[in-house]
């Protein structure tokens, strides 16, 4: 197991290297000059030129890349051009919002998607199954920002039950009650993904239900609920768990939109704003961290899978 972990984490390095190169090159393909953006409309060409030299933008791309890479290897993601503070600090600041948002979203996805999928499968063909399937098709097909805007309209603007935007830290004034700021965004973010999990759970439960070992279980004369939970669901979970990896990855990109709609001070919104500001170090640093997170999630899913399925050996 330890050897497996070391090997898998070792395999992160080439992926990260390739990702770092792509990130570095692709942001520079976007037209726009960070120096010009920083100095604003009134800047003289001389002033912009001077700033470009100061920021090292006049050197060749290869030199710039290697300099950045050698800093990154030493744990230095550079300073933000816009904020003039270390990128790592900005990421850590945004992390609280983003991690809590992701966790809450996963709670909805797992806590809602799995049971609803189970019920739909157990009652297949009934009106309940059909309305649940219809609902999940609807949720899967509407974009996150649309759901977000309607949630704001209904629960914040009309009913006034929940705040529409922002997020004060749970470590500051208000404490854990501040989590209510994340309620609407996490629901908006969960909706399409939970729908996917509902569909997947239902489909794989129905698949498993036809398996010989389910017939064996029924031949034992055990309670039907036990057949469903211990035999059908446990095996259906194998398919669903491998989809969790994709879902989490999708969350990362969808969080960018959601954080923007709800003005949450998270990592996702920071990426969007930094792209508009051409704040190269922040974009590079944040996306590199997201890639690392994505790799870690996939590793975690693989380990979870091996734990659920005794036939899979991690070597």
């Amino acid at each position: 197991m330890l050897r497996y972990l070391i090997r898998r984490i070792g395999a992160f390095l080439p992926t990260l290297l390739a990702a770092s190169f792509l990130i570095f090159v692709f942001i520079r393909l976007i037209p726009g000059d960070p120096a010009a953006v920083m100095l604003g409309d009134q800047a003289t060409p001389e002033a912009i030129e001077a700033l470009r030299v100061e920021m090292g933008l006049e050197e060749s791309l290869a030199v710039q890349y290697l300099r950045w890479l050698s800093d990154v290897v030493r744990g230095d993601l550079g300073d933000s051009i816009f904020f003039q503070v270390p990128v790592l600090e900005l990421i850590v600041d945004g992390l609280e919002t983003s991690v809590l948002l992701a966790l809450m979203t996963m709670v909805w996805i797992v806590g809602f998607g799995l049971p609803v999928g189970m019920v739909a499968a157990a009652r297949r063909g009934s009106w309940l199954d059909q309305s649940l399937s219809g609902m999940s098709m609807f949720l899967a097909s509407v974009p996150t920002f649309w759901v977000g805007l309607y949630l704001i309209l209904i629960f914040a603007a009309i009913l006034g039950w929940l705040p529409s935007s922002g997020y004060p830290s749970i470590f500051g004034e208000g404490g854990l009650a501040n989590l209510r700021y994340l309620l609407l965004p996490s629901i908006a973010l969960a909706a399409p993904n939970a729908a996917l999990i509902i569909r997947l759970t239902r489909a794989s439960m129905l698949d498993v239900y036809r398996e010989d070992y389910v017939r064996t279980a029924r031949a034992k004369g055990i309670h039907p609920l036990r057949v469903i939970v211990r035999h059908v669901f446990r095996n259906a979970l194998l398919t669903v768990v491998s989809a969790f990896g994709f879902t989490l990855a999708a969350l990362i990109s969808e969080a960018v939109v959601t954080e923007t709609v709800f003005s949450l001070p998270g990592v996702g919104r920071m990426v969007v704003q930094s792209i508009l500001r051409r704040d190269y170090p922040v974009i590079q640093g944040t996306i590199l961290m997201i890639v690392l997170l994505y790799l870690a999630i996939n590793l975690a899913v693989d380990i979870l899978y091996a734990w659920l399925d005794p036939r899979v050996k991690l070597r």
Partner: protein
Amino acid sequence: MNTLLSVRDLELVGHTASGPRTLVDGLSIAVSEGESLALVGESGSGKSITALAIMGLLPEAEVTVGGGRIEFSGESLLDLSALERRRIAGNRIAMIFQEPMTSLNPVMRIGDQIVEMIRAHERVSLRAAMARAAELLADVRIPEPAMRLRAYPHQLSGGQRQRVMIAIALACRPKLLIADEPTTALDVTVQAQILALLRDLQQELAMAMLFITHDLGVVANIADRVAIMYCGQLAETGSVKEVFRTPSHPYTRGLLHCVPNASAELDELVAIPGQLPSASESLAACRFAPRCPLADTICHRTPPPTVAVSAVHFCHCHHAGGVAVP
């Protein structure tokens, strides 16, 4: 001997896209206590679906009971509630299946799968149930049973998995064991071992057995009596000895003729001409008539009578000779 299981005029109807279709037509069989009955037929003859009907495991959306009775120890199974049937399934009637490779839950330990059966029907502690599971594994001749309890199905061979299936089936000392082609998926040497094991256990536990197979060699090996089915109808029943020595139904004769014989100098395998009627074909009154060398118009029009060849041997054929039973 007392009749343990009695199936009378059972009719099973399959619901297909092209409408309902009779899968089992007026089947009557009986198994006495401690007796071993082999139910023989080609695939599609309705033998497995009959077993599922006895267990109460029919896939309800696809197959329903159209008529008839199934009695077990004098109780009419088809009249019982789902809960009452669950008390019988596994406990007093247990079943083993054709595919040992896929019949065990891949993510559950062997021990847990045996214990689940014990604890479904008896109030015993987990520890006691585990001890019993180890004994059961020893009973089915699995070496190092205590260690094997912790194994997962994929760590066992096909033969061993079928032994585990037998251990699960025998966990509650059932009065009747239904074995649905339990050796078909195994290689020949393992087949012989499993058959010997089943025969030994059946005698040790004085358990009745309904053994479903298409293999006449197996029948001679394991059964006291045999019931031969063709396309949902019973063709012939009787003691294995009599049916094999004096087969009276043309289908049985055809089947016995098909068994390859190492001593006979034949170049080709003999086969019954024609094939099972397809799902869309309309059926003759005697299902075998279209393939039967003796068939005439009456066979297509009138369902075959039950003819007593002897006191322990019955044939369902217009041309069997012997005395018709009303």
